[in-house]
């Protein structure tokens, strides 16, 4: 069996596993056990963090202008280091609000990735893997669902706001993050616009008209769809507009998060993790791909980042959730330290930054460094190491990270959790 699974490729294997799963266990339960993870059990010791908000700066965030400032005209360009609340950490003067919360956040300054192409680097940052023929890897939220189980009986375990790929990779579609395009609308477009009685009537009718087909074709595939219909109705029977509706938040709080898709997305992320979603990713509204742009653009980008992330930290702290919710801010790669003639910076995969805060994270420090010219990152940390760090904080480590049948192990290679930054 194991050889068989190893000898076939992704689509076949997935189809096969699903087939077995449906036949033996009923659709909604199955794949987790089959794919080799243990049945999730109550964690013996509470993990340092149980929620993650991953804030993704699309387009290549300039580390020099944010988390790895340099004090020179040549490399600092328009940005200079400023002190923060923590004596051990400096940030760029473009991030004054985050600097004021320096004790609660830390920075990894020696991130590296192997490619300077946007889409490939984005894939690596989301999965920990390089793209390879015949395989798509799961994003971190899907892995977490697989190793830790669903984070809520009804809500999805991971949500992706204003982002794109990747999804559950080679894991079954059950592990898909729920995509939300526009945070302000939430899932309005997917909720019933009719009253409950009417919905019930329609569902009853649909069931009636489904029976002859289901009877003629007693297939697992058809049964699976019936199951999914039941689950969907169950999902909608709760007040599902509530967790996804940021208009229920006070107006001044909405404004503090920033009146742009990223700010509103971060607010929705907080609302969702508060209600049981484990992993939420939010993509920045502006693209950092500012190779043509100059400093004018930078101010907008940095303000969005500074305002939203600092508000998110404050809000979580006010609610007593910062200790158990990790915030991650990073990008597919960084930007060259040297500023180009037109004021822009080029792609820079070798030496960029990630900011971590909250649950499981030691605050107020910088881990790793680049030299005065922003090069030579040491010690080098790759996206998979960042993933391993998050995984460790979530309690996904130890025996649970292991080889799946016919699969590369979770996080590939030998990832090193970045212990220095963990509380």
């Amino acid at each position, binding site marked *: 069996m194991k050889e068989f699974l190893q000898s076939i490729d992704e689509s076949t294997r997935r189809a*096969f596993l699903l087939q077995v799963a449906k036949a033996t266990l009923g659709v909604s339960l199955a794949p987790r056990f089959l794919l080799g993870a243990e049945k999730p059990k109550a964690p013996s010791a509470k993990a340092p963090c149980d929620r993650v908000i991953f804030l993704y700066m699309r387009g290549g965030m300039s580390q020099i202008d944010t988390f790895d400032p340099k004090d020179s005209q040549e490399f600092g360009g328009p940005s200079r280091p400023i002190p923060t609340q923590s004596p051990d950490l400096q940030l760029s003067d473009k991030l004054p609000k985050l600097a004021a919360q320096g004790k609660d956040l830390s920075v990894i300054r020696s991130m590296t990735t192997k490619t300077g192409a946007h889409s490939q680097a984005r894939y690596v940052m989301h999965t920990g893997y390089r793209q390879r023929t015949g395989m*798509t890897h799961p994003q971190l939220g899907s892995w977490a669902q697989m190793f830790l189980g669903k984070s809520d009986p009804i809500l999805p375990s991971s949500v992706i706001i204003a982002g794109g790929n990747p999804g559950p990779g080679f894991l079954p579609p059950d592990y898909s993050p729920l995509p939300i*395009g526009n945070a302000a609308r939430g899932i309005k477009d997917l909720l019933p616009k009719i009253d409950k009685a009417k919905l019930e009537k329609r*569902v009853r*009718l649909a069931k009636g008209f489904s029976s*002859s*087909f289901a009877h003629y074709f007693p297939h697992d595939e058809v049964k699976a769809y019936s199951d*999914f219909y039941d689950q969907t109705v169950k999902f909608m029977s709760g007040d599902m507009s509530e967790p996804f509706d940021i208009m229920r938040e006070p107006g001044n709080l909405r404004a503090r998060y920033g009146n742009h898709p990223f700010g509103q997305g971060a607010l929705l992320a907080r609302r969702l993790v508060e209600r049981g979603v484990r992993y939420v990713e939010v993509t920045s509204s502006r693209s950092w791909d500012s190779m043509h742009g100059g400093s004018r653009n930078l101010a907008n980008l940095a303000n969005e980042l500074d305002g939203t992330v600092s508000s998110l930290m404050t809000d979580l702290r006010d609610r007593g959730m910062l200790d158990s919710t990790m915030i991650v801010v990073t990008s597919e790669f960084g930007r060259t330290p040297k500023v180009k003639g037109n004021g822009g910076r080029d792609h820079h995969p070798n030496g960029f930054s990630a900011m971590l805060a909250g649950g499981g994270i030691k605050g107020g420090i910088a881990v790793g460094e680049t030299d005065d010219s922003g090069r030579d990152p040491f010690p080098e940390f790759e996206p998979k190491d960042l993933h391993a760090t998050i995984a460790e904080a979530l309690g996904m480590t130890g025996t649970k990270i292991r080889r799946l049948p016919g699969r590369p192990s979770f996080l590939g290679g030998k990832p090193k959790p970045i212990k220095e930054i963990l509380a």
Partner: protein
Amino acid sequence: MHRTSLIGFFLFWVSFASAQRVQPAPFNPSNEKVGIMRSSVKAINDRINRVLAREKLPYNPTLNDFLFARRVYVDLTGTIPTYEQLVHFANDKRPSKRTYLINKLLASEGYVSHTFNYFADLLRIQTKMTGGESASERFSGWLKDSIHQDKPYNRLVFEMISSSGSIRENPATGYHLRDKDMKLDHVAFMTKVFLAKDIACAQCHDHPSDDWTQKQYYSFASYLGELEIGQGQDLAKDKDRKMIFAEKRKIFHHPRFSSAVRSKYGRTGNTAGKVSEFHRDFKKLAEGKTLAVFDDDGSNLPLPDDYQYDDAEPGDLVKPAFIVGRPLGGPRNVPLREQLAFWLANPQNGWFSLAIANRMWARYLGRGVAEPLHNVELEKASDPILLKTLSEVMVALEFDLRAFSWVVLHSKAYNRMGSRVQLEERKPYHFPGPLLRRMSAEQIWDSLVTLMVADPLRYRQPAPPSLLEVRDGWSALEFIENVEQGKYRLVDSRNGEEILIDGNDESSSYGNQRVSISSGTGKKKNNLILARASELPQPAPSGHLLRKFGQSERLFVVGASNRVGSVPQLMELMNGFPTEVLTSRDSLLFRKVRSVSDPRKQAEVVFLSILNRLPNKEEQELLLAQTGSSEEDLSDLIWALLNTPEFFFIK
């Protein structure tokens, strides 16, 4: 004022020229070919009859007209039939009406669209592709044209593999551009797709089951050793270049160029900067500094640094050699890639014909004679003789995919109900009929579009603007913007009106669009439009219904589309935009229903429109018991039928 009309006129002219509806080639095979088609059907039937007799299995029950029509419409045109099409077919009294229908659909626009979807999945076409300059649109356009013109499949593959030049000169180069900077993967995709051989493992080490060594992999890959994708070898023709520079002078000295830029970007206060940016971009384009596919001297594919076996050293160049089958002669003094194309897409290359024949069979029957489709081992085929027969038919029909489809659709196995008994994994399937299949994401979306709008193919992705079409400042601006900014264009094929979609907005779902329901035409508000899947960005944005229903991400897996259910998928069907449109009383469907007055007949129209069949006895009782004849009741009925699994399965 005059500005608007000028642009209007110009865009009308350019877009309309490129969006005009060309009718697909008629399906009109020669008598000789018809003879081959008929005998092919017989050969396939004879073989399956024999196997079923041996296994003591009966064929599945036959199809009535409704089931037949639904199936061939979905299989050939990618969508369920309309109410009118279905009724028209049912009332047709000609004895050969099923053949007439198949012939008609093989020559329809829907066939082109649906077949494009099939290949777009197989070739992992992405709108956002290396090469800027609307590379993907050009490649897609070329593929659609090739299907339109009924280009034989072996010719299509030959043109892709041997293609050289820039995407503008030769759009088939999009095939190589798609996999720029991943040549070894490119080779692995090539063998999976065209030869049904998965050699990917041997990229890094000898294949575990000893089928291929790493050295063999590199030997085969060496046929692409000289392949280069780089800047600017194209537009070498002086004539073109002179003309383009003359054009450029005309354009940038045209008084309206600056005014066009100013009126569009003036508000941002940086007109001069924009103008010079456009000058720069245009120069780059006009000078041909775009990516091009060409062959360099000498291979750039040495064995890798970590090559671990004793038969060669790391860094050695290996002699090109074919990975399966045998050499087939052919020209020797042509570039290696052409030698490869000659061998690979050759009627005498058994793996090539077998791979596509098996794929096409699976496309219509729900399962290949051998699985998985991209890694066939003859001895594991459910029936090697049937596989061989199909392969021979493909060769005899000279890789005419429409004729091959005709043959499959006339086979006895195809003309039976889907199997009630579930397929048992790793047990052979003997084709007493097709498998029960869930529709592909594209078929589901396109069926919904068919229900929503009167002319689903009205909005088309036009061919990208050509440099030669640039005539004045405004069109220059248009051209550069299209080329540079990744705007996704659609054109209304009735009036040439152009619609821009932000192709970079991955998060957009179609939730914001509005449809002018009463006129039955799709109109976009924000991002997407009610156009067929083949005309939308490839793949659709992540929140789109297409993606929820399993459209492939088109990343690194061949055949990554899936047909598995999920909760968001069904929320989409229960509460999403299409259902909202279809259950509203202004919808096209409602108007069809209202054209009859008898409530029972009204319910029939709904059944025929959505499930393409009449209600059975129990369902009639349910209708009587549970619903009345008010508009509310009709809405409920439409909702209910859209939310039965039967809607998106092919029985």
